[in-house]
């Protein structure tokens, strides 16, 4: 969908339903918080966002914090549009953050303000060097556990967002929350700083468990705020509207 006159350029996610919800895609250079409890499809959606980018010729970077990249790739959905040559050609790059911590000598349980600057600079340099246009960090929550205080979390996310935005990079920060959480992030800071929030959840209705997606906010574009049901398929993430008739579920 082409951008409307006066609207910001879009980073087309390639996920049809999501691009429709967002009136054409994520506004370029935005930092989006992709949040949800476990098993809601966050990593799959984030990966698909990168793969579509790489297929479209945009260099894409996945920064894995919790899971080893090898293991992640071994469990990837067999997407029809995924070709391992994207990795070989450098269009799709996987980096394990623990390895980066080690290289930077960040071995302590809590990062200092100087180390935050060092980490942001290292990610920024890497993104610049590789010409990255799409970046995913999975998960920001794990990084936040090393930051400890709301001030440091705020500082880290603000600096990271600015660095990536200045490089014309659209980023997705994956956030983990508890299943019944009413907040959009574990520390309550991440959601306030991000340009957008995409909430993924499990909805129980009469004993059935449905995976849902809802765009809570997205700066720089109009968007639907309705809840959608999704399926993770080899053709990618598919979305349909949540049916409301006669349902007592919230």
């Amino acid at each position, binding site marked *: 969908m082409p951008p409307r006159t006066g609207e910001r350029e879009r980073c087309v996610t390639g996920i049809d339903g999501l691009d429709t919800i967002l009136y054409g895609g994520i506004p370029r250079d935005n930092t989006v918080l992709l949040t949800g409890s476990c098993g809601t499809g966050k990593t799959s959606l984030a990966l698909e966002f990168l793969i579509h980018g790489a297929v479209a010729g945009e260099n894409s970077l996945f920064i894995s914090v919790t899971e080893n990249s090898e293991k992640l790739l071994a469990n990837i959905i067999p997407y029809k549009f995924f070709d391992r040559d994207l990795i070989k050609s450098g269009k799709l790059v996987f980096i394990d953050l623990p390895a980066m911590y080690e290289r930077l000598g960040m071995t302590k349980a809590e990062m200092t303000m100087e180390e935050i600057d060092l980490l942001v600079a290292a990610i920024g340099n890497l993104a610049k060097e590789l010409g990255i246009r799409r970046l995913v960090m999975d998960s920001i929550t794990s990084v936040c556990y090393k930051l400890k205080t709301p001030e440091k979390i705020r500082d880290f996310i603000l600096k990271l967002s600015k660095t990536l935005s200045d490089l014309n990079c659209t980023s997705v920060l994956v956030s983990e929350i508890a299943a019944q959480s009413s907040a959009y992030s574990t520390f309550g800071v991440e959601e306030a700083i991000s340009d957008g929030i995409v909430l993924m959840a499990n909805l129980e209705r009469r004993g059935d468990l449905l995976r849902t997606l809802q765009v809570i906010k997205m700066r720089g574009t109009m968007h639907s705020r309705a809840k959608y049901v*999704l399926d993770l398929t080899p053709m990618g993430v*598919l979305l349909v509207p949540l049916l409301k008739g*006669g349902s007592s579920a919230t």
Partner: protein
Amino acid sequence: MTDTRTAGNVARQLNELMPGSAVSLQMSVDSYLDVMRGVLDMYAGKRDMDTIYVTATISFEAIKRVMAALDIDTSRVYFVDCISHIMMGTEAAQKDERASLVESPTMLENIMLKVEYLMRRSQSKEKLVVIDSINSLAIHNNNWILSEFLHILVSGLRAKDAYTIILSVEEHSTPEIASMVNLVCDSGIRAAKEE
């Protein structure tokens, strides 16, 4: 085993449909097999179209057995089976590439998602979606949500120029179900045995 005149009549009327049409196909219980032959063999089979068959009445395995007995080619029929899971009989569907399971007929959104997935996967120029049957779905869902489901599903398929056939069994139908189906369909076919 089947009444070819009834099957032929069904196929003839289906052949007159415009792309993107949705049709209500009413039948009596004893004309089910004739309808199967008319829809899958004499209509979809002859036109080389992929069929997405949503079954909420009997398992896909049982339907495949019936079709095999009728000598109907099912190589281009893809099933969305909403019943095997609740019968705890998913083994066959898990092994069959042409079967997609929906955990329960109450998961109407997941039925739409499986249909969408199969639509995207299909290479066929023309596509047919069969809902078997609205009466079975009505056992598990209230009329409001079922009506909303039909409206969204049929509108989406219409936009893709796919044909939709909604089967209903006369003996199990109610005025509410008939009205719900009529609201989304362009035309109706009644399959009855020729006297």
